[in-house]
């Protein structure tokens, strides 16, 4: 399983000064400046726009599920195996539950897993990867060994084993399991990036100034790696969605929770595709794909925004001489 290579971009303008410099007197913090640039970039970059729109839709759905789906997802109060109709937009399951409601309410579970696992994974990876790079020596050695061991172990079987031990789990268990097995990849990437930044003069200046190492790592190094960290977060969120849904699909999640993965599990159990209820499998599957695509699109867009060399080449808007 290969991850998209993300966020590896060079920081700042090397060497020559730009010929166009901002007007004097405008002091804009990089954070606000970056946000404004991002907003502009999102609007102009098609991938970013698409990804953002999708993600926002899902977030809204997860925040206000009751507004969109009026039926209760768990109540098996309806006639089973109905096809799509105005009363039940996607029909009903074999247990008489409204599929659309299940889908809508399930969004919350998936998004929570995506964001929490994504953040936790990235957080651990940042600490381990950057510390290893900056501290070097024995620290680097031991942290790298730890990272590599986890990298080498096949991810999915490991997930299954751990989840099995945890006797199938609640959302929390899923998040823990995914975080524990996924941080090593990002840690490796961040370590490489931090290594390449290690000899930048401002870090040496901080050392010479007398700063402690922890301070340098947290305050001086990590903020300059934000673009890679955000890109890693997006990747990890994407994979959290896929892993969680996969685990739930094979029955290692909580079968009674509302989630797309569990919908797939139940659909599989009832041989949905073979018994003429394709939507039961296809709908959650499509949602998983769509959310995954949202994260992936944002990831590519982020790369392009951060690293202009990756931008799609548009036709020169300059009038050419003939």
């Amino acid at each position, binding site marked *: 399983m290969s991850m998209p290579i993300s966020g590896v971009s060079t*920081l*700042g*303008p*090397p*060497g020559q*000064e730009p010929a166009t*410099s*901002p007007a*004097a*007197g*405008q*002091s*804009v*913090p*990089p954070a606000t400046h970056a946000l404004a640039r991002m907003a502009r970039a999102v609007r102009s970059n098609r991938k970013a726009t698409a990804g953002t729109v999708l993600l926002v839709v899902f977030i809204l759905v997860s925040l206000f599920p009751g507004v969109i789906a009026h039926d209760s997802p768990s109540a098996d109060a309806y006639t089973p195996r109905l096809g799509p109709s105005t009363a039940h937009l996607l029909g009903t399951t074999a247990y008489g539950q409204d599929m659309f409601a299940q889908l809508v309410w399930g969004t919350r579970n998936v998004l929570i897993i995506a964001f929490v696992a994504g953040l936790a994974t990235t957080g651990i990876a940042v600490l381990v990867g950057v510390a290893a790079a900056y501290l070097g020596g024995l620290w680097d050695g031991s942290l790298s060994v730890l990272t590599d061991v986890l990298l080498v172990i096949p991810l999915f079987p490991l997930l299954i084993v751990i989840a099995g031990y945890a006797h199938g789990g609640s959302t929390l268990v899923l998040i823990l399991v995914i975080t524990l097995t996924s941080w090593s990849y990002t840690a490796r990437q961040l370590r490489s990036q931090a290594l390449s930044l290690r000899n*930048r*003069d*401002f870090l*040496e*200046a*901080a*050392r*010479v*100034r*007398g*700063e402690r190492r922890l301070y340098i790592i947290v305050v*001086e190094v990590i*903020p*300059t790696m*934000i673009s890679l960290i955000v890109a890693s977060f997006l990747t990890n969120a994407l994979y959290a969605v896929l892993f969680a849904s996969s685990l739930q699909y094979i029955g290692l999640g909580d079968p009674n929770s509302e989630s797309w993965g569990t919908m797939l599990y139940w659909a599989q159990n009832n041989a949905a595709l073979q018994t003429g209820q394709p939507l039961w499998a296809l709908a959650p599957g499509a949602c998983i794909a769509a959310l995954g695509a949202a994260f992936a699109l944002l990831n590519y867009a982020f790369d392009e925004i951060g690293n202009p060399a990756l931008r799609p080449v548009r036709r020169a808007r300059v009038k050419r001489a003939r």
Partner: protein
Amino acid sequence: MTDQATGTPDGSGGTPRREDVPSPNGSPPLLTTTRLTRHFHIGGGLSRRTLHAVDDVSLAIGEREIVALAGESGSGKSTIARLLAKVYKPTSGEIYFQGTPLSSIRSRRETLRYTGLVPMVFQDPFSSINPVFRVSHGILRGLKLHRPELSKDQRLQEAARVFETVGLTPAAEVLKRFPHELSGGQRQRVGFAQALALRPKLILADEPVSMLDVSIRIGLLNLMAGLRDAEGVSILYITHDIASARYVADRLIVMYAGHIAESGPVEDVLASPKHPYTQLLLSAVPDPRAPLDVTAETDRGEPPRVVDPAPGCRFRWRCPLAIDTCHQVTPELRDLLPGHHVACHVAQAGADVRAFG
């Protein structure tokens, strides 16, 4: 302190007279080094090869003076800066600052005190300031660490004061800017301001103007001279550009392949260079105002990478005046004239050295 000889069996007992020259105003030198040596282990785990970056360098820097340390890349000048900044530890030899040997500075507090008195300014204006913070960040942090007695307001005031001193005005406004909003020259001034805020005695400037446009360099060089005159700070100005060294420095030290070749008052060294390498450097400097003089007899050699060297003068391969002694005995730095030292057998033998140009 045992004087570990690093392979120079020239038989001369005791230390020959070298750079313990008192400063122009007669006070004892601020910083001296005694046979300072730094080797690097190269070639992987099992290799026993060592790169001799700096060998047996004894120099002195006085109060209120600018000493230029000139040489090509690989001469060891940047290594010396880092040795003096306590980034590297010497392989052998000692550094004395205000009489105290650096090896005795061990605690964090003492080290902080030293790095506040001897801060460093870096070469690359584009990577020497953290891009995500305002330019005040480095100074305020430096003040917090080195002058903890100051309150927050006092720190801001001090930051504004040093910004004004280096010519970044109006200070309050520039302090709020981000590095990408400043030009290369302004960023280098920020570097000097950061050093100045610590109330240093000696600033180690590692090629501070090499990456700036020519028309901006003069401003920075004038700033350095101003700091010496107005703030009483000494500066070790490391450069490969002899012309700028002449413009701003009081004394000049020329390094070659880890050794000092020649040193002395800058006008003396440039007017009558005694070491063939110094002459080579001078002949290579293009001067638009000098008459057209293109000779085909130009040295095509390269400075060596000094790995496990044998004794002998390291310039002997490129020197048209090399004699047998040069291949066998490493020359020591000796006075030829008061204050003007040369490490060259031929020059020390009294010959009038005219090797290049």
